[in-house]
């Protein structure tokens, strides 16, 4: 077990080990939702809350239910069930309290079940043997990191919309190249903190 303090893990997850730009998790939704700023921000906030809370819940389930019962191989099944239930709950809460956001997010909200970031955060938590406080920092950091890169990308894509790229690069190609430059920029933080 490593002894990195939780707040360092939080900052590392935001910048140096950004879950999207260094682990490529959550790319599919990221490509789709960064077309406009509103859905990037809205989904980013939902992602931060859901990733943070489900990672904590999954930590409790893994260490206090699955390990004592020697059922570690059911990890995937339990994690995805927790995430699905939680996303369903989040969907109902958003629909009840902020109908405008609910309709602007549309299909993305239920599809959060298959967002790699949420599942990936839980799996990395197990692989890296985080303690409880470290898990709290990691979960919210991973979700926040996703939001950060999504909002940045939405802004860059808005700018790129006015430019005139070569025809072959229009669409996904250009976004990938921009993402490559963003990943390089984020790698510049790498000397500050490192988590595995």
């Amino acid at each position, binding site marked *: 077990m490593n002894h990195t303090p939780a707040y360092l893990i939080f900052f590392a997850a935001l910048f140096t080990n950004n879950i999207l730009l260094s682990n*490529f998790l959550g790319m599919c939704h990221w490509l789709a939702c960064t077309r406009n700023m509103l859905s990037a921000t809205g989904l980013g906030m939902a992602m931060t809350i859901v990733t943070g809370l489900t990672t904590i819940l999954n930590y409790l389930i893994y260490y206090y239910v699955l390990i004592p019962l020697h059922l570690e191989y059911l990890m995937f099944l339990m994690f995805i069930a927790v995430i699905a239930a939680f996303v369903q709950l989040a969907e109902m809460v958003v629909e009840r309290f902020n109908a405008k956001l609910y309709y602007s997010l549309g299909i993305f909200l239920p599809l959060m079940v298959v*967002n*790699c970031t949420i599942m*990936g955060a839980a799996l990395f938590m197990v692989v890296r043997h985080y303690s409880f406080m470290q898990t709290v920092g990691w979960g919210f950091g991973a979700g926040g990191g996703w939001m950060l890169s999504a909002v940045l990308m939405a802004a860059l894509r808005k700018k790129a919309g006015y430019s005139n790229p070569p025809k072959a690069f229009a669409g996904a190609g250009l976004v990938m190249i921009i993402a490559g430059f963003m*990943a390089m920029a984020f790698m510049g933080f790498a000397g500050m903190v490192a988590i595995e």
Partner: protein
Amino acid sequence: MTHCGACDGKGKKTFKDGVLDNNPIFAQVLGICSALAVTSKLETSLVMGIGYVFVLSLSTLVVSMLRHTIPHRIRIITQVLVVCVFVIILDQLLKAFYWEASRQLGPYVGLIITNTLTLGRTEGFSIQNKPILSLVDGVGNGLGYALVLAVIGTVRELFGTGKILGHLILPATIYTPNQMMVLAPGAFFGLGILIALLNLTVLKPQGKKK
């Protein structure tokens, strides 16, 4: 495959669609996460590709067989759970027989569950089509996906380390390995350039693609 009655003669087209014309990564732009994450070496790309064909083909088959029994409202979570079962089997098999590969892939085996391509095929195809045809679709898409993983894996390993499958191809006197290709930015650049090249040559420019 062309003559199997259960496919209504659509077998060949469905298969070709999955591998080439409607390739999961280039045309559907699904399942990018694993495509970038496991392709820093050809070996892991191949293991992932083969494992993915296994999971996708069996899940499309089972979902298609269950398509009349699954209640409409909870169909997404049911499909995810079906996929999950096969991923657990794959994970246990890898751990038992290919420990080294399992360790290198790490959490990315589990992330097949949340690979959007899997859900895209079960939700978009299997839920409306007969089992055998769905199996063909699953194998086709899985192979198309594995093919792209292998290509990206080869390019990244060759230019990142000068090796292919651990054998030295480009000695340092000819080509200085560029570490960038193995790291995250190289993955983005590699895929971006590959998509652009395919847009130029194989795939017809669709104009409206956005």
